[in-house]
């Protein structure tokens, strides 16, 4: 009796606390988004003079027109560029990461340990530090100011390799590989037909990780690309933040419209991700 009574009270308190924490987290995460949504509708003047959390006169259309005028009608092209660079780097980078991770986890080769240490060291290296050396390298390769200058460096993800290796170790049993070999499957076929399927959730994670990292990488495209038509949306929008007469409302609207592809991607891919996590938990 007393035990049941004692058990019921913390349960109710737990529910309340959980709700409070969740609501707090929701406000914390969605608050800035709400601010951007509201601010994207305001004129420059209202941004200064009205409360940041309350809507003022509606300037959506004007801000959109300003956005297109300042970006010289390149805005949607820039968003498209960002999607292309991030998706290309995401797909290639995921394949490379998983393949390398698989190799490191399942094939004992001389020097394998050294490679792992090198990959881990790469994990600790800030990408910004590598931008200038990469830039000099790409000048020599003659690839500066081409999409490859952004895509190729972004494909390399030490974190992806690391994650790939961990996932392979955890979810690809050696017995399965041996069975496949006994059945006469080639190593290529084993990798593409067996291993990749088992690694689907890991691949979604790595893909999203590389995609977002590429999308957010500002310094690399800033250095590598000069042609207006090649810029990703992050760099392009930054160019609107000039010292003279910057149109904040329009920039904020651009920032909001610019993240739409990211939101769609996350909502679209999250069920694969959830399925993967759940299957791992049951196992």
């Amino acid at each position: 009796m007393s035990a049941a009574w004692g058990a019921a009270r913390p349960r109710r308190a737990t529910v309340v606390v959980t709700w409070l924490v969740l609501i707090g987290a929701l406000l914390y995460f969605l608050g800035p988004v709400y601010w951007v949504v509201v601010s994207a509708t305001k004129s420059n003047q209202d941004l200064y003079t009205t409360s940041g959390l309350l809507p003022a006169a509606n300037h959506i259309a004007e801000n959109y027109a300003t956005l297109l005028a300042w970006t010289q009608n390149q805005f949607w092209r820039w968003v498209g560029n960002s999607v292309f660079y991030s998706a290309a780097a995401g797909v290639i980078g995921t394949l490379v990461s998983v393949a390398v991770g698989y190799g490191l986890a399942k094939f004992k080769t001389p020097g394998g340990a050294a490679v792992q240490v090198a990959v881990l060291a790469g994990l600790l290296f800030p990408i910004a530090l590598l931008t200038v050396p990469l830039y000099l390298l790409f000048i020599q390769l003659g690839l500066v100011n081409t999409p490859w200058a952004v895509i190729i460096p972004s494909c390399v993800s030490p974190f992806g390799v690391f994650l790939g290796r961990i996932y392979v170790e955890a979810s690809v049993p050696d017995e399965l590989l041996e069975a496949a070999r006994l059945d006469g499957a080639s190593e290529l076929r084993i990798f593409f037909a067996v291993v990749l399927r088992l690694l689907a959730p890991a691949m979604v994670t790595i893909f999203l990780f590389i995609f977002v990292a590429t999308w957010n990488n500002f310094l690399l495209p800033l250095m590598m690309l000069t042609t207006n038509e090649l810029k990703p949306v992050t760099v392009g929008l930054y160019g609107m933040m000039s010292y003279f007469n910057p149109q904040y409302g329009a920039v904020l609207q651009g920032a909001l419209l610019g993240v739409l592809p990211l939101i769609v991607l996350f909502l679209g891919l999250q069920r694969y991700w959830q399925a993967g996590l759940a299957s791992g938990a049951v196992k």
Partner: protein
Amino acid sequence: MEHTVARAAGVLAAVAALAATSACAGTQATTTAPSPAAPGTTAVTGGEPVEIAYLHRLPDGEGMTKVAELAEQWNEENPDIQVTATKFDGRAAEMITKIEADVQAGTAPCLAQAGYAEVPSLFTRGLLADVTSEAAGYADNYSAGAFSLMTVGGTTVGLPQDGGPLVYYYNAAEFERLGLTVPTTMTELADVAKTAAGQGKYVVAFQPDEAQYWLAAQAAAAGGTWFSAENDAWRVDAAGEASQQVAGLWQDLLDSDAALVEQRWGDGFRGALNDQSLIGTIGAAWEAPLLAGDMAGTANEGQWSVAQLPSFGSEAMTGPDGGFGVVVLRTCDHPAEAMEFNNWLNTQIDALVSQGLVVAATGPMETPEAIRTFYGGQDVFAELATANENLNPDFPYIPTYPAIGAEMAAAADRAGSGQGTVMDIFTTAQEASVSSLEDAGLPVAR
């Protein structure tokens, strides 16, 4: 063997990517011209036009004359010298990083925008070309003070584009209501400030976050020269007579609570402007549109005016607070042609004014309509042009000057809150300048 195959398959995509790039490599823009024309000759012998690349950070916004359009116009009129203008979207420091890498790789543009305070540093790092002889012919087109900022120890490295001479902004309607006269000297400024403070208003603001260039410019206005080259060594005089005069003024204003203490880029400054407790401020020429923007839609519309900076020394003189020019980079193959375009570009006054610049070129600037309206119909840019011509003609910076800003701002913060004196800011500047030069291995004259 099989293992090798598996690994190879994994990196297949990357290899394919690399292979595919060979097709794209040909499309990369070339920055150096193939023309064999010797530097210094305008006439091109081979019929092949000289190509000049120009990297800038101008806003290129809505309703402005785009830099690319200017380049197009030039290209039509000058088939022998073809210019490609590219906008850099990042910060000035990021652009310098890129330029440095470009110069190292030999792919740098011929012309690049650079802040006046950065020019000596770029020069010391060996990134700039000596265009003294080419520039000499164009010197008369520019404010002498601005032109001198593009010169390092006697070597001219480009042409000035935008100027930031200090002027005095004030709310004319409030001045009239309170019976205040516009100050023309340092003493008058102190008197007016104290009278206004008695009526609960401020006619000046002390801006700690702007201390580095704003106070240096005031020392320049008082006739000071902080840095000079002497026998191939830098002589530092940041706490000399002129600085002491400026410190005396501000210490008096602070001690008598006659100056508002606010960070220029904080909300408090804008708030004080909007509730009209701050009705005057010393600011650079580029503040004209910014102040108008800060106060747009308030009672201040149409009330403000621009006057020359009250004279800090014996004559009407002002100092440089910000601004930038267009430098010629060392790896440029055609400096003469680059300078020809550079001069043409920087004398396109109307187009540059549309980009929000207060041009360094001498000549009439048309005040944009929005600015004219805010400042009660005043021909603001004529006033700014006068200030440009009154710039102290001898106020160069040292290569390490950008590095000492934080220390000066901290000292200014202490002065503003009464924990230090205004003079401390200048002694800090003096000491930090000397030590930063020594740290950089540059000779200092004692």
